[in-house]
C-alpha cells in the first residue's frame, strides 16, 4: 500500500482529475489508486460528478430580459423624482394629492368651459407614466393655468424643454383642449421618437430572444410604468439546450420548440431540418407516428405574449407528452445471445454519439408480454430485460442498427416505425431500446 493514507490522497483527487498535480503528488496519487479500490471509487464518483455538471444544459435567455431592462431604465415619475420615492417627505401621500387636484381641476375646467369639446378626460392613476398615449394628470398649478386661458384662445407657448434637462418641463399638449400639461418626460418622448426606427439588433445564434424583442418594439400600447416581467410558468419554460461542442450532446443540440421525432422518418424523408433556431420557425409540424403534427405553444401563453409579439416555447409537459407518443414509435427491441451483455450494447450506443439518459432493469415478463402476443415475433426464453432511453443523432441510428446486427447471435425483434406524416426531421431523436437476454 502507498505510504500516503487515503485522507491525504483524497483532497488531491480533483486536481489529479484535471492533470494539475505536480510530478511528486501525481505519482503518490497514482500509486495509491493502484492499491486502494475505495479511492478509485471516489475518483470515479468525482469524475462522474464533474461530467454531469458539464452536461447541465443552458437555458435560452428569456425574451423578458431585454423588455424588462428597457422598462426599468425609464426615468421615474416626476413626483417620485421630487421626493426620491419617499412620499412622506411631502407629508401626504403624493398620489392621493395628485388625484384630488386633478378632480378639482377637471370640475373647474368643465364648469368654466362647458362648450369646449373633448374636455380633459379622467386622469390617469398616480404612478402611471405620463406619455403621449395617456391623458396626463395636470400639474398642481393647473387651476391657475386654466383660469388664465381666454375662451378659444390659443394656449400660451410652453417653455421649450431641453432634451438633456432633468427638470420637469411644460409643453403644449396637442388637441383641442390646449391645456398645458406637465411633461417631465421630454427626454422620454424624444427617446420614444427615436425608437420609432429601432436600431438593428444582431441575431443571436441560439434562443429566440432577439426576434421576439424586436417584435415587441411594435406594440401599440405602452407598458405601464413599472412592468414586472411576467414570469414564464414552469410548464411553459423552454426545453434546455446544450452549450458544449464535443460532448455527447455537442452535435445534437435540442432547439426550443423542436420535437424529438421517431426514427422511421429516415427512410421517408430527404429534407434536412431547418437550420436556424428561431423560435417561431421551430414551431412546425413534426413527423410522428400518431403524434400531433404540430407543436403549438399553450393558448394562455400566446394570449399573454400577444402584446409583445413573442411566442412562448412549448411547455415541458407538452414536450414530455410528445416524447411519450414518439417513443411508442421510436422503439428498438433486441435479444442478446448468452455470450453478449448489456455493456456491449451501451458501448455501441455511445460509439455512435448516443447519450444514455436512463437505463433500468425491468421485469422480463412485462417486457415480453406485449410482444409475445404478436405472432410474427417469436422470442426465446427471456430471463432479463433492460429498458434504455437514448438520445442519438438522427444520422447515427442507421449505423447503430447496422452495428448491432453485426454482433454474432444478436437478434433485432423490433425496429423503429416510420411516422405517418412527413415533416422536418429534427437533429436529435429519442430512442427507447429494449434489451432482452
Amino acid at each position, binding site marked *: 500500500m502507498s505510504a500516503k493514507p487515503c485522507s491525504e490522497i*483524497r483532497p488531491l483527487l480533483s486536481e489529479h482529475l484535471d492533470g494539475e498535480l505536480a510530478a511528486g503528488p501525481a505519482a503518490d496519487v497514482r500509486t495509491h489508486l493502484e492499491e486502494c479500490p475505495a479511492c478509485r*471509487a471516489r475518483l470515479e464518483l468525482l469524475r462522474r*460528478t464533474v461530467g*454531469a455538471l458539464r452536461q*447541465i444544459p443552458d437555458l435560452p*435567455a428569456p425574451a423578458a430580459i431585454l423588455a*424588462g431592462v428597457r422598462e*426599468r431604465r425609464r426615468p421615474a415619475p416626476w413626483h417620485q423624482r421630487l421626493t426620491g420615492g419617499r412620499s412622506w417627505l411631502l407629508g401626504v401621500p403624493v398620489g392621493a394629492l395628485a388625484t384630488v387636484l386633478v378632480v378639482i381641476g377637471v370640475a373647474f375646467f368643465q364648469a368654466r368651459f362647458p362648450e369646449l369639446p373633448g374636455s380633459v378626460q379622467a386622469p390617469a392613476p398616480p404612478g402611471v407614466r405620463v406619455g403621449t398615449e395617456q391623458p396626463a394628470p395636470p400639474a398642481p398649478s393647473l387651476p391657475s393655468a386654466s383660469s388664465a386661458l381666454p375662451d378659444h384662445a390659443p394656449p400660451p407657448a410652453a417653455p421649450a424643454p431641453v432634451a438633456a434637462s432633468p427638470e420637469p418641463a411644460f409643453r403644449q399638449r396637442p388637441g383641442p383642449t390646449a391645456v398645458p400639461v406637465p411633461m417631465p418626460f421630454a427626454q422620454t418622448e424624444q*427617446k420614444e421618437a427615436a425608437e420609432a426606427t429601432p*436600431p438593428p439588433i444582431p441575431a443571436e445564434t441560439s434562443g429566440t430572444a432577439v426576434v421576439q424583442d424586436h417584435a415587441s418594439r411594435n406594440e401599440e400600447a405602452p407598458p405601464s410604468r413599472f412592468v414586472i416581467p411576467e414570469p414564464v410558468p414552469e410548464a411553459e419554460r423552454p426545453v434546455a439546450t446544450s452549450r458544449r461542442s464535443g460532448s455527447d450532446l455537442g452535435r445534437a443540440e435540442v432547439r426550443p420548440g423542436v420535437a424529438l421525432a421517431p426514427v422511421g422518418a429516415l427512410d421517408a424523408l430527404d429534407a434536412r431540418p431547418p437550420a436556424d433556431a428561431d423560435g417561431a420557425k421551430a414551431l412546425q409540424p413534426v413527423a410522428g407516428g400518431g403524434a400531433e403534427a404540430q407543436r403549438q405553444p399553450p393558448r394562455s401563453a400566446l394570449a399573454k405574449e400577444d402584446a409583445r409579439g413573442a411566442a412562448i416555447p412549448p411547455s415541458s409537459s407538452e414536450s414530455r407528452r410528445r416524447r411519450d407518443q414518439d417513443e411508442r414509435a421510436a422503439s428498438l427491441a433486441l435479444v442478446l445471445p448468452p455470450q453478449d451483455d448489456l455493456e456491449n450494447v451501451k458501448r455501441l450506443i455511445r460509439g455512435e454519439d448516443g447519450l444514455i439518459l436512463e437505463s433500468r432493469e425491468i421485469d422480463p415478463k412485462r417486457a415480453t408480454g406485449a410482444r409475445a402476443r404478436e405472432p410474427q415475433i417469436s422470442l426465446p426464453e427471456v430471463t432479463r430485460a433492460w429498458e434504455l432511453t437514448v438520445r442519438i443523432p438522427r444520422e447515427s441510428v442507421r449505423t447503430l442498427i447496422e452495428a448491432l446486427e453485426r454482433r454474432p447471435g444478436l437478434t433485432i425483434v423490433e425496429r423503429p416505425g416510420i411516422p405517418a406524416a412527413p415533416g422536418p426531421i429534427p437533429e436529435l431523436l429519442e430512442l427507447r431500446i429494449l434489451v432482452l437476454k
Partner: protein
Amino acid sequence: MADEAGAAAAGTAAAGTVDPDADLVRRARDGDEGAYEQLVVRHQRRAFNVAYRFLGDYDEALDATQEAFVQVYRGLGSFRGEARFGNWLMAITLNLCRNRFKLWKRRARSRHDSLSDPVGDDGSDLRRELPDPGPSALENLESRQLEEFVREELRHLDEEYRAVLVLRELQDVAYEDIAEMLQVPVGTVKSRLHRGRAALSERLRRRLAPPGDGGARA
C-alpha cells in the same frame, strides 16, 4: 483627449487582452442605446444561466438578470475598462444573486447545509461515515438521473463553491476571468473549485449510499 484615454482604457482588459465588447461599451457610454441593447443581447444568456444555476429559481434569476443589466447601464459612465465588460457584468450579477440568497436565508426560505458541518471537504473520514455506493448504483445511474441529482445538490452547496462551479463547469469560464469576477486570486479560484467538486461529489455519495449502513469503513 479624455475620450481617447477612455477609449484606450475600454479597449484593454485584464491580462492585456482586448475586450471584444470595447466598441459597444464606448458607444453605449456615449448614449447609443442600440449599442447597449446589443450588449444585453450578447451577454444575457450567460448572465441568466449563471443566475439561474446559482439561485435555482427561474423567476428570481430573471429578475436578478434584469437588475444586473440596469445596474450596468447606470454604471456605464464610470466604467473605464479596468476589467472586461462581461466580467464586470458577471460580478454584478453574482453580487445580486448572493444578496438575494442572503435574504432568503434570513427569511428561512430555503434550507442550506453548510459545508463546515457534517461533510468534510478535506477527504477525511466523516463523522457520519457511509459506505461508498456499490458499483451497480453508479452503473445504473445514467446521465439524466445524475444530472438531476447534481442540479439539486448544487443548490445546497456553499455559495462560494457554487459560484465557482457554475462559472467553471457550467459556463467554461477561464480561471483568470473567474478571479476577476469574484475579485479573488486565481489560486483561490482553483482551491474553491476543487473543494466544491469534492463537496458536491460527497453529497452525491451520501445520496447514493445504501440505506441503513452507517458503520465506519475499514
